[in-house]
């Protein structure tokens, strides 16, 4: 794993303007991302975890310039790519790919698998028409599918096979970086393990960097080098996998980890969970100060007033929490 950052995300902000009410008479702003700063290192798997609506998918979309950032920078190869227009973005599009959650809706039902995988190759002129067939066969082999699948249609494939095709399509562009947006969440356990293995193999073979967006912490723990925890549009904590799972600092991370079930009956029966009260507040009107203070078991006065600073609490271990800063937690 290289230590060079592949991508630097600086103070990224994303607001969505929505209209509420039966006739859209009320304008409102969804604070989806608020001042996110982190690096993605070359060759690593960085995971983003958090509950629905925490902004993890929005982060993936915004840093690929699929959503327009409201503020902030995403530096890739010396360029702030979030200010590029669609045309200037095109050379980067090839290198920056995404695999989505739902393999049923991401493939065009009227295109054969071969056409779906071949399309980006022709678009980016990565092979001539004569070479195309071989290239498609190689890509299908890479994702563990026999070449005869090239003439099949998506409806003939199982969920796991479709997700393999989606991965082959991303690989077709010879990317450097792939955002896996809940790419394995819709799959059955036994198939999920197959796809995780495939992603790990491909990373080794092609030196890929992954931003892995997921809510299943057991999977994240298995595949990540570093893990970032998000809550309501902000990063709460980011550290190496060992640091985060063994020495979590942020009270939200601790609660999240204690909610993950383990496949061990005796342990599960005797374990004392730290169960969070209530639900995640609405991103339409996020709480003041630290956004977690309404559910935090150790919230102090300052937490509802000031936004905690995003700082390095231990080497390489970033956290945003007043209690950690004051040495009250950890």
């Amino acid at each position, binding site marked *: 794993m290289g230590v060079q950052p592949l991508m630097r995300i600086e103070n990224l902000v994303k607001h969505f303007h929505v209209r509420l009410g039966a006739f859209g008479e009320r304008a409102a702003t969804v604070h989806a991302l608020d001042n996110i700063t982190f690096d993605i290192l070359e060759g690593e798997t960085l995971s983003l975890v958090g*509950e*629905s609506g925490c902004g993890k998918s929005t982060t993936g979309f915004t840093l690929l310039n699929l959503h327009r950032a409201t503020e902030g920078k995403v530096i890739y190869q010396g360029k702030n790519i979030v200010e590029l227009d669609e045309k200037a973005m095109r050379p980067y599009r090839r290198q920056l790919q995404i695999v989505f959650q739902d393999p049923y809706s991401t493939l065009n039902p009227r295109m054969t698998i071969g056409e779906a995988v071949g399309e980006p190759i022709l678009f980016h002129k990565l092979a001539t028409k004569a070479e195309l067939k071989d290239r498609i066969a190689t890509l299908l082999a890479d994702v563990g599918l026999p070449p005869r699948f090239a003439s099949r249609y998506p409806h003939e494939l*199982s969920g*796991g*096979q479709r997700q393999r095709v989606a991965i082959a399509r991303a690989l077709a562009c010879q990317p450097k970086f792939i955002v896996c947006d809940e790419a394995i969440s819709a799959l*059955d*356990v*036994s*198939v*999920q*393990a*197959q796809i*995780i*293995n495939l992603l*790990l193999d491909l990373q080794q073979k092609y030196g890929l960097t992954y931003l892995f967006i997921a*809510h299943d*912490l*057991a*999977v994240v*723990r*298995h*595949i*990540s*080098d570093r893990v970032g925890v998000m809550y309501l549009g902000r990063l709460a904590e980011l550290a190496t*996998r060992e640091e985060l*799972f063994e020495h979590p600092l942020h009270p939200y991370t601790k*609660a*999240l980890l*204690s*909610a*993950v*079930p*383990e*496949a*061990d*009956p*005796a*342990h*599960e*029966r*005797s*374990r004392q*969970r730290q*169960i*969070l009260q*209530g*639900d*995640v507040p609405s991103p339409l009107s996020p709480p003041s100060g630290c956004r977690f203070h309404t559910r935090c078991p150790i919230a102090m006065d300052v937490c509802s007033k000031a936004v905690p600073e995003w700082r390095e609490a231990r080497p390489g271990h970033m956290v945003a929490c007043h209690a950690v800063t004051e040495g009250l937690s950890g």
Partner: protein
Amino acid sequence: MMMANNIRPEPPAKTGERLLDVRGLTIEIETRSGPATIVDGIDLHVDKGETLGIVGESGCGKSLTMLSMMRLLPNKIKVTKGEANFAGRDLQKMSNSDLRKVRGGDVGFIFQDPMTSLNPVMRIGQQLAEPLIYHRGMSKADARKRAGELLKLVGIPGAEDRLDAYPHELSGGMRQRVMIAIGLACNPQLLIADEPTTALDVTIQAQIVDLVKDLRDKLGMSVVWITHDLALIAGLVDRINVLYAGTVVEDAPVDALFANPSHPYTQGLLASIPKLSDERSTRLSSIGGTPPEPGRRPKGCPFAPRCPLAEAICHERVPSLEGLGQNGAHRVACFVAQRKLEAA
């Protein structure tokens, strides 16, 4: 290990008395190329006070089995064989009006998606009161009072004020709590929970699992919890049935199942869950291939085409569920596992 938690009441006593007994249930779906078997002669039972976990991947028939018992199947899907006895009466032979008294009365349901299971244009107080008025003959005023108590029971803050709320005004976790309250409204003897936490976030999921556990212990009912997540129910259930392609392949007390999984499919499922102790990027063991589609069931053991241990006999004959060991509480449908035990 089994330390009694001070806050929690003791789990209900297990009497060994059958509450639900399903025998040889076969379910078929009509397809263009004729009927296809989805559930193949399934046997399962739940004792009074027992919590049973039913585990399997999508399409294994775990939800259909439960729906078919209550005769809630869609048109093209039919029970062709078998019986389902609840408290000594065959649900398949019961008249519609008798069955209606069982559904939502003695048997409560919680479904996966509270957004589609709740009526969006009815206040939640009314939805809670409905079964109480219908099954228990309560007056409107009494039912409303009881509805408020039920919301309090499932931990909804400001319960009485929430009675007049509509489902869309509640969060996903709150809606699932309302579903649970409706399922519990008539003090059922059996609660069937069909993937009740799948749509929820992990912290909310933990809240719901703990809630059902508490309520079960408080109210002394039996629970069937259907899920694809073995880890989730590890601390909740007494016994687990593992389903594959419409048959029970393993039936075991929860500790025995995790300590000594005997069917190759159960072993594969457990091995494909990432463990805390794994090094990063170690390859997960996975089960090759995919489950058979209805109508294309292989001859012999349905798992044989994917099974690493399959032998000639596995492709020829269907193994029956046989008890392992002395008391036979741990049962497995696998020729290889059964022979191994005989040899030992």
